[in-house]
């Protein structure tokens, strides 16, 4: 293929670069005249679904270029019960065996089902210190944007790209547009990163950040913990963004220090010096900007079949008759029919059949603490599942006695994995049932054929569990302390 090299790469002046430019420039091996760059990939993560890529390698008789930079982890099909015995479902067992065989064949490290480090890829990999500021991180999973919380350039890819990374440790990419989303001012009590993210998606739309890399900035973002930042970046893909990130700072460094695969001691301090330089320059220009006021963000839930169908808990279900644009009105009619909701009804009148607390969006220790703060000493009116994001989170929660709170409320406390987020392991919401869920996608059938999903924060799911309907968690948190 005839490819012209860019004679002089048009770069933003060095003193006016965004963090997105800095990360891009540091990884661009070569840039073609058409603006496409070959990027170096620092970390490549695999899960059971990666078998299509291994099949492509086998077809070409190709090997893995940099096995030391690739990690496999069992999560999508991980059974959440009875993990000590053999996996009962033969199809699921085959998915797990396939991952073990493929990683073993190519000499790749695997965090398997019974490894104490096991968990959802976007929860367990950062825990190991494998995600660092300034890295490119890819995985055949769209929520790879989660790792941007550390100031990494992290994005989801398809199976053909997974195969390409395995074979070359590189990827051809178009430079994304740069978008800055600023959230300023304090968040109200009981308002979490999930509420911020759903508010952003409701405003800019499920395709509002298409083609963009998003930098989240502003005082409300700076004040978030690493867990909160991961939730925020995780949901970047639900506004169509290629990736989302937060500039690394002392919060990032404190969280990373001492993690197994992070640099240790003086090497960490030296690295942190470099990482501080990643922040966007004061005069750096973005292609798009959006800003939000933290104090105006309310507890937010979804009512429809796209994450953009989100509204504050005290709002009502929209009325398609009041929407002028016919295409949009029809989308709302279709969503209400699928969700079995009436136009104009109050969101807090919606009754639920089931709850789920888990997924790479909201299954970290803070999430479980927030849900437990609502549930402590109360009974759930609906059945439900709590699946911690990693085996390490599970151990920590058990040390803190959170598992007891969930069990005493009547919820099931299970092992970690993707579980009811996507239902691949058999944990599904039965057809026609309505689930209050801490996950990221309320798509038709996402949690099982015919399932109906309402997305919200862990505290809001816990509140829905207690009352049996969508509920403002703040009322149930009054006088209770949420440990950060």
């Amino acid at each position, binding site marked *: *293929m005839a*490819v012209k090299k860019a004679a002089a790469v048009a770069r933003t002046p060095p003193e006016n670069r965004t963090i997105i430019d800095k990360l891009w420039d*540091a990884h661009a*091996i070569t840039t*073609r005249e*058409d603006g496409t760059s*070959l990027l*170096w990939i620092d970390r490549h993560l695999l899960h059971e*679904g990666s078998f*299509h890529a291994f*099949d492509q390698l086998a077809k*070409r008789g190709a090997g893995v270029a940099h*096995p*030391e*930079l690739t990690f496999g982890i069992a999560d999508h099909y991980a059974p959440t019960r009875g993990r000590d015995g053999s996996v009962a479902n033969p199809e699921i067992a*085959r*998915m797990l065996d396939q991952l073990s065989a493929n990683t073993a064949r190519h*000499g790749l490290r695997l965090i398997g089902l019974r490894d104490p480090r096991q968990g959802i890829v976007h929860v367990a990999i950062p825990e190991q210190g*494998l995600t660092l500021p*300034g*890295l490119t991180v890819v995985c*055949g*999973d*769209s929520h790879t944007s989660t790792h941007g919380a550390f100031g990494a350039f992290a994005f*989801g890819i*398809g*199976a*053909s*790209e997974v195969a*390409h990374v395995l*074979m*070359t440790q*590189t990827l*051809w990419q178009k430079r994304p547009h740069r978008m800055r989303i600023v959230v300023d001012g304090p968040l109200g009590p009981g308002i979490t990163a999930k509420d911020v993210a759903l508010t952003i998606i409701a405003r800019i*739309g*499920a*395709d509002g950040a*298409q*083609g963009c890399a998003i930098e989240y900035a502003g005082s409300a973002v700076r004040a978030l913990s690493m867990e909160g930042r991961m939730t925020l970046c995780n949901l970047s893909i639900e506004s*169509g963004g290629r990736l989302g990130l937060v500039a690394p700072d002392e919060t990032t460094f404190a969280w990373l220090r001492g993690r197994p695969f992070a*640099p240790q001691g003086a090497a960490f301090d*030296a*690295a942190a010096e*470099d990482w501080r330089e990643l922040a966007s320059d004061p005069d750096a220009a973005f292609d798009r900007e959006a800003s939000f006021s933290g104090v105006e963000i309310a507890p937010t839930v979804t009512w429809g*079949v*796209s994450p*953009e169908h989100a509204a504050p808990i005290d709002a009502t279900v929209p009325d398609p008759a009041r929407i002028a644009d016919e*295409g*949009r009105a*029809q*989308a709302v009619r*279709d969503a209400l029919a699928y969700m079995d909701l009436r136009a104009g009804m109050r969101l807090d009148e919606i009754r639920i059949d089931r709850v789920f607390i888990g997924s790479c969006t909201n299954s970290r220790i803070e999430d479980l603490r927030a849900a437990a703060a609502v549930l402590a000493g109360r009974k759930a009116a609906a059945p439900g599942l709590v699946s911690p994001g990693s085996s390490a989170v599970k151990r920590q929660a058990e040390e803190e006695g959170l598992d007891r709170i969930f069990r005493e409320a009547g919820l099931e406390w299970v092992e970690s994995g993707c579980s009811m987020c*996507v*239902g*691949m392991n058999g944990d599904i919401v039965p057809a026609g049932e309505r689930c209050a869920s801490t996950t990221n*996608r309320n*798509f038709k*059938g996402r949690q099982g*054929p*015919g399932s109906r999903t309402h997305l919200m924060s862990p505290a809001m799911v816990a509140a829905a569990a207690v009352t049996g309907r969508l509920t403002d968690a703040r009322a149930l948190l009054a006088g209770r302390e949420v440990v950060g």
Partner: protein
Amino acid sequence: MKPFDSLETPAIPLALANVDTDQLIPARFMKRPRSEGYGPFLLHDMREGPEGPVANPLDDPRRAGAAVLVARRNFGCGSSREAAVYALADFGVRCVIAPSFGDIFASNAVKNGLLPARVSEEDAEALLGSAWVEDGRALRVDLAAQTVTAGNLVVAFAIDPVWKTQLLNGWDDIDLTLAERPAIARFRERDAAARPWAGLAPGD
């Protein structure tokens, strides 16, 4: 990869926005190897109800052999599953026309020789509402000219120029990358000095 030139085929009108990849292929069908074919599972839950097949635009006999699908905005949003493209391709779809696409979906599509043709919202509505499309008459997609013709209606579409070249030639990224080996080696040397904290040692 088979080069893409032009198509003359009926089109499937799918008047929906935000058709996500979970709908394009529900997760429970993704355990099979590609060699078994993903076509029967395309939009499965829209085509099959609990009581059997449901009337839908894909299985309309007037549009048998359709290789084009027309939809509303944000087609292919959501999960990165390339299986969504496999389902379309194995069903026989070689081009999707919509006002916008999920980024990962569009990139996966091109890698499998499937054209994501971006049109304005008005043009998408015009195609969706046209009797020509409804009746299952053949429309023409011309990649070189970037046009879709349905009877008297001629609509221009956008496609990233890099993807256009790739589709027209049936090129594969890998060959291109392997030619860059010297540049990769030079980068590695530079990078090891610039970012000493980025690497990992093999083993445990």
